[in-house]
């Protein structure tokens, strides 16, 4: 049933602006990051790693989390339109499948975004005249950031399930990401879900900040993920449906 829910959710994304956002929005931080790198290339050391610090500085600060919020808000927006929520909630589908169907699609689009970001990073690096290909370690960071992104997707999906506004969760995600930086600066990045993304991507750092802490990172991702999923399912089960 979960597979059918995922197929249904993917169908709802047909002709939607989600794909446009997924393709176009990462171009902005890639462009700004590359321009910044080219401007300061004499002072920046480390070639691909230096370019990575510039790309992630803007992307993880201002773009990634709101982008995930766009995906999640859209997935609930189609249900909030008219009285679609009544239709969805009266189909003979377990409530867990309804939520995880949406989460699986949000997670897939988030990972797809990360791969696109890495592709853009590679193209920008070649444009900036960097030798060879980016180190595999950066691809790993990118995908690890995607894992943090999935936790954020679970949190935002929960938020969008409760808040009918499309824009509010997007604004909130930006504020929460800023708050995440405060946690990161204090060294508590694993204890605030919106810091997991920057920690996972090793944003704005040359050396892996999670070296030797991978298990703790995975554990924290798991705990936050389960917490948000449990809260979303509890609300779906106990609250009246307001269409």
């Amino acid at each position, binding site marked *: *049933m979960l597979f*059918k*829910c995922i*197929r*249904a959710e993917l*169908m*709802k994304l*047909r*002709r*939607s602006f989600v794909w446009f956002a997924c393709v176009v929005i990462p171009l902005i931080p890639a462009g700004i990051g590359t321009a910044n790198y080219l401007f300061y290339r004499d002072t920046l050391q480390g070639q691909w790693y230096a370019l990575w610090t510039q790309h992630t500085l803007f992307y993880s600060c201002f773009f990634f989390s709101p982008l995930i919020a766009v995906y999640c808000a859209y997935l609930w927006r*189609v249900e909030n*339109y*008219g*009285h*679609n929520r*009544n*239709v*969805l*909630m*009266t*189909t*003979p*589908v*377990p*409530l867990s499948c309804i939520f995880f169907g949406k989460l699986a699609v949000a997670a897939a689009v988030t990972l797809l975004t990360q791969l696109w970001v890495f592709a853009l990073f590679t193209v920008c690096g070649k444009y900036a005249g960097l030798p060879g290909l980016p180190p595999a370690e950066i691809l790993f960071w990118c995908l690890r950031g995607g894992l943090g992104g999935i936790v954020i997707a679970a949190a935002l999906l929960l938020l969008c399930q409760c808040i009918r506004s499309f824009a509010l969760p997007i604004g909130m995600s930006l504020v929460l990401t800023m708050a995440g930086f405060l946690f990161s600066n204090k060294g508590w990045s694993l204890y605030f879900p919106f810091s997991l993304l920057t920690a996972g991507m090793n944003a704005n750092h040359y050396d892996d900040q999670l070296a030797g802490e991978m298990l703790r990172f995975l554990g924290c991702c798991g705990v936050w993920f389960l917490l948000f999923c449990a809260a979303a399912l509890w609300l779906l*089960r*106990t609250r*009246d*449906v307001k*269409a």
Partner: protein
Amino acid sequence: MKTAIETAALTKRYGAANAVDSLDMEVPEGSIYGFLGPNGAGKTTTMKLILGLVKPDKGTVEVGGVAVTAKNRLSVLRQTGSLIESPSYYGHLTGRENLQIISMLKDVPQSEIDEVLHTVRMENQQHKKVSHYSLGMKQRLGLACALLGRPKVLLLDEPTNGLDPAGIQEMRELIRSLPGKYEMTVLVSSHLLSEIEQMATYTGIINRGRMIFQGELEELRMHSQKHLLLRTQDNDSAERLLKERQVPCRNQAGALVLPELSDERTAGLIALLVREGVGILRLEEQQKNLEDIFLSLTGRQVSL
């Protein structure tokens, strides 16, 4: 009588007000049950309670003998189709894509899509984006979605709302054909008495959350008492003469209202009035129509 839907003491509170108040509803299997009530009477809330969309504060609901509880949610929903607070649709998708989504979620074969499209006569519009549909087409699409999976029970909440007369007629005919075609029970709500009169075989009237009448439409008509309306050239004298002969009557808006009398008694009284020099202008038999009955039951105006 086998019931398709049964509620007992069903109650739902919003704040201090009871939206649904100790409602006992029995929808006979295979019937078209017209659920009638003024706006805000609790029709939609009752339907949402039946479908488990809102949780009751008190009371029970059974659909096809299965109690509506969180545990039984799936088995109840498998036998129901619904159109609540319609219309509902994904406007950026085509009609067929909308049906494909519902058929996936209901786990019914895609081949059923053609069948329901034929039933609601929408084969030619299936590839158009739903946002370009007229309201009537959107309603028919909603009905097609509800029909997928051949549910045993269909709940339709004011399905003709906002439709033009031709659309209303078409929707009405469609609904009337469903029990015969799919062997299903239909619960259809409306605030329009004339509509229920033309569609339903059974009816329930709800007012301020309470069921004030439930039964066959004929039974409702029996609430109507016949009376005679007499207009004369001198109503005061006529009233005095009739009361002298123990005929209860009252003067109302320029006419005398008399109870139903036998033909012989009526003829005798008319002859008497003529003999006494009271000119008869008009004598007519009157019966309360459903509108009057509804009004007397609810004390509230209903739309026609």
